[in-house]
């Protein structure tokens, strides 16, 4: 058989690089996806970190992975199962084999498959020899020894070789996909610009891997034609970085300095890390002693006129509840970002879920409404964060923005916007010495009170958690005043429905089935719906970014469908919320609570079943 005879053209492929924590899989995956973009493909990526920082070497607990979905069409998900798995040791093969499509290619570093490693990985026999991988196209590449060979003549060559194995593997993979290695070589050069020796070694390993690829019989090699991507300037961005940047943009456009009070927690810490880098934009960062101090400091900063943010994940979100109530009571702008992870309690810290919705909606004492929104993709995190900040400041309210670990850590191609094109943000700041200023005087249309900043002449006033008189803002326990204030606070939030985008439908406005999703599942649900639409099925999709308040046309949209199916990664929190707020419909539900995203195939199966019933 000649080499690489079959060049298989594909619309999209899923490649996953897996290895031990120290094997450099994140970098390998990143370079692979970046170079795919340079060759015109759309991508989505997701890092699959181990829960432990340094789990024992070569064990299943220590496996780190990076999944890349590359396509010639728009890519909305990280892909269900892998077409190609690159496994650097037995443990990573063992823990990832369940994510590989039958018949697909597995590249293993055969040098690592020894008795001791099987043992550590929990294999009883060599999986490469016991026939258990028979349904796959396994390429047994001597990655370690070949890398060493390439380094023979270098001083310290063997030592460096150990650390450059990942680049050798990358070289093979690039060859497998008919990629031009030049982009990857450039990226390696850039990445290690300050360490020329390492750059040189890595490039050498990459080239050696590429030539090795040429020399083996890969059975088939893949080609993914370029995607039709709108012209423009792009970059690759993760959801957490996009969130941080959206907030920065909102700060700049509103001319309100950005303050972040936060306490580290997976998977939200990256927002704190990102914002901490940008002091040149005037950002003030307060790494607080706990989540309560994080949100309380943000409220203090908000009182003084900052765009105040607090970021966290589930357990920290719980700690913030009381202060969120204070934010509602004082009617101060505040953005609370919850990068959801699987709970309850500490739960599955590195896995994703959409189960904090009830807490966002209801998790406070008293009648305590605030705005709840959810970002739908890594790139959408930018726009959702911007809008959350805009709504918070223009409507003087706390806003909860729900993202999740899956979109927070995942990355996508991001068409770079111009900040001038983003919508204006005009906070209702009170003017100095306004004789009519009263802390709780409201704009009659929006019910929004004014933002009077300490330091401003003629506006001294007091705010706080005690119920206040509906205009003067003095403390009062008057029963009717309290009821009036409860209503004002709720109505103010409801009126925000006038300022948000209507619910859009992908597909026909009338059909047999409407699939409903919210937050980070948009990509998988949309992909599945489109697949069935392409088959001519009567199915449409509506995705919610705004949860409180909801788009005003929600009921009208729902009326167009025979059946409504709500898909979410929890036991049914949004569907129950719909049952409560939009009565008169029968809502079906599809739920998954495994700490994993939806797979497109499982959605397609469910939708087909619903359509057949």
């Amino acid at each position, binding site marked *: 058989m000649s080499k690489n005879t079959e060049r298989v053209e594909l619309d999209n492929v899923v490649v996953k690089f897996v290895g031990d924590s120290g094997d450099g899989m994140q970098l390998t995956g990143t370079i692979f996806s*970046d170079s795919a973009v*340079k060759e015109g493909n759309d991508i989505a990526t997701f890092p699959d970190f181990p829960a432990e920082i340094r789990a024992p070497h070569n064990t299943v607990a220590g496996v780190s992975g990076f999944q890349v979905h590359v396509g010639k069409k728009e890519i909305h998900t990280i892909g269900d199962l892998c077409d190609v798995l690159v496994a650097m040791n037995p443990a990573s093969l063992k823990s990832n084999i369940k994510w590989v499509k039958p018949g697909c290619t597995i590249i293993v570093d055969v040098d690592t498959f020894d008795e001791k490693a099987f043992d550590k990985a929990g294999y009883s026999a060599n999986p490469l020899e016991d026939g258990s991988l028979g349904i796959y196209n396994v390429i047994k590449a001597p990655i370690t020894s070949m890398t060493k060979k390439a380094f023979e003549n270098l001083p310290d060559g063997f030592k460096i070789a150990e650390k450059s194995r990942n680049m050798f593997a990358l070289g093979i993979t690039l060859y497998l996909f008919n990629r031009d290695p030049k982009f990857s070589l450039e990226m390696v050069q850039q990445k290690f610009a300050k360490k020329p020796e390492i750059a040189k070694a890595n490039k050498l390993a990459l080239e050696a891997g590429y030539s090795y690829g040429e020399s083996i019989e890969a059975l088939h090699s893949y080609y993914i034609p370029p995607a039709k*991507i709108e*012209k*423009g*300037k*792009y*970059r*690759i961005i993760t959801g957490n970085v996009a969130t941080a*940047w959206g907030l*920065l943009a909102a700060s700049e456009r509103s001319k309100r*300095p950005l*303050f972040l*009070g936060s306490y580290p927690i997976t998977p939200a810490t990256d927002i704190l890390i990102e914002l901490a880098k*940008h*002091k*040149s*934009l*005037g*950002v*003030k960062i*307060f790494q*607080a*002693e706990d989540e*309560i*101090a994080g949100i*309380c*400091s*943000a*409220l*203090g*900063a*908000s*009182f*003084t*006129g*900052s765009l*105040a943010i607090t970021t966290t994940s589930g357990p920290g979100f719980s700690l913030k509840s*009381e*202060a969120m109530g*204070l934010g509602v009571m*004082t009617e101060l702008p505040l953005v609370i970002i919850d990068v959801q992870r699987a709970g309850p309690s500490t739960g599955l810290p590195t896995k994703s879920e959409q189960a904090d919705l009830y807490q966002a909606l209801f998790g406070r004492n008293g009648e305590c409404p605030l705005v709840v929104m959810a970002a739908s993709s890594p790139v959408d995190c930018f726009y959702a964060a911007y809008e959350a900040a805009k709504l918070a400041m223009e409507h003087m309210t706390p806003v909860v923005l729900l993202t999740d670990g899956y979109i927070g850590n995942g990355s996508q191609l991001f068409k*770079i*916007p*111009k*900040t001038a094109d983003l919508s204006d943000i005009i906070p209702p700041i009170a003017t100095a010495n306004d004789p009519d200023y009263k802390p709780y005087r409201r704009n009659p249309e929006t019910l929004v009170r004014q933002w009077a900043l*300490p*330091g*401003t*002449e003629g*506006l*001294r*006033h*007091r*705010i*706080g*958690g*005690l119920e206040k008189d509906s205009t003067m803002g*003095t*403390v009062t326990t008057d029963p009717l005043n309290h009821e009036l204030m409860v209503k004002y606070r709720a109505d103010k939030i409801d009126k925000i429905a006038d300022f948000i985008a209507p619910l859009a439908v992908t597909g026909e406005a009338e059909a047999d089935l409407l699939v409903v999703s919210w937050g980070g599942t948009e990509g998988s649900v949309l992909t599945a719906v489109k697949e069935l639409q392409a088959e001519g099925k009567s199915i449409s999709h509506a995705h919610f970014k705004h949860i409180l308040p909801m788009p005003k046309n929600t009921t009208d949209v729902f009326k167009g469908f025979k059946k409504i199916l709500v898909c979410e990664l929890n036991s049914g929190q949004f569907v129950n919320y719909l049952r409560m707020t939009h009565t008169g419909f029968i809502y079906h539900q599809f739920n998954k609570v495994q700490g994993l995203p939806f797979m497109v195939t499982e959605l397609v199966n469910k939708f087909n079943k619903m359509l057949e019933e």
Partner: protein
Amino acid sequence: MLLNKTIEPSDKQLSKEDFVSDQMVRWCPGCGSHAILNSVEQVFPKIGYKKENFIIVSGIGCSSRFPYYVNTYGFHGIHGRATAIASGVKIANPGLSVWIATGDGDSMAIGGNHFIHIIRRNMDVNILLFNNQIYGLTKGQFSPTSPVGTVTKTSPHGTIEHPFNPGELIMGAQGTFFARVTDTNPRMMTDAMFEAAKHDGTAVIEVLQNCIIFADKVHASITSRDFRDDYQLHLQHGQPMIFGKEKNKGIRINGTKLEVVTIGENGITLKDILVHDQYSVDPGIHLMLAKLSAPEFPVALGVIRSASFSTYDDQVVDQIKTAKANSRIQCVDDLLNSGDVFEID
């Protein structure tokens, strides 16, 4: 008098009336808090900042009603979190003179974490700690400063836990300013408040405050007419530590301990008496002073410690200045277009 360069001064002489609020003060008649309020209204105009540049932040408790009773910007927060809210205020706007009103429960029970951390960071704020050794607002449960054996409704058999000595806690948290005053001595209060305002960093003033309803006279062994001369040591920077009705008793250091001596007895002269250095960076003597307790010792009052360290909020400003001067990223468009950006056509 202009104390702090970042805070804008008032262009006219202010008076007490500028700070008196129109709200009815709802503390019990005879509560020590009235005197604290009065002292604040006295001292704020003297500090000299524009009246709009004062802000009072509080938690929850009788003491935390304070912001409603002073005509400044005010934020009545939630229980224990005044220090956290105030940190955000000060970082976000260093041009404000930030004052915190908090109780012994508010600051050292539910808010203990934030309390030690604001001190450790040396945030430039002033904390008025109303220490009445009781939870006043919730009607008289023991607090973290109640002495062992205190009988309350939740400790009918007496408390079995060791109280905090706030001064000791503050110095343990690397506090840079600590004063202790009594609610019975207005002059001492205003002096300490003025010193606190002058101090760059977290200034804590512990006021021994009487809760006439639930813990009446807990400080009487120090504050009452009969005892005050012999059990109060009024510290003055640069002055020897003498006390007593006859002004003939003093504090001397003996080995590693402080002791009470009588001038004129056993050859003791004024020269043997320790001279107070409130600015000493080393907190050793300050800590010993803070721990002095009756009946063996007089209780140290006045400014015990006022050491100079850089503040958190100043350093935030400095880091931003440096970053602005050195970064290529000056606006969000710069950021969006920085690093690995590519054209697709």
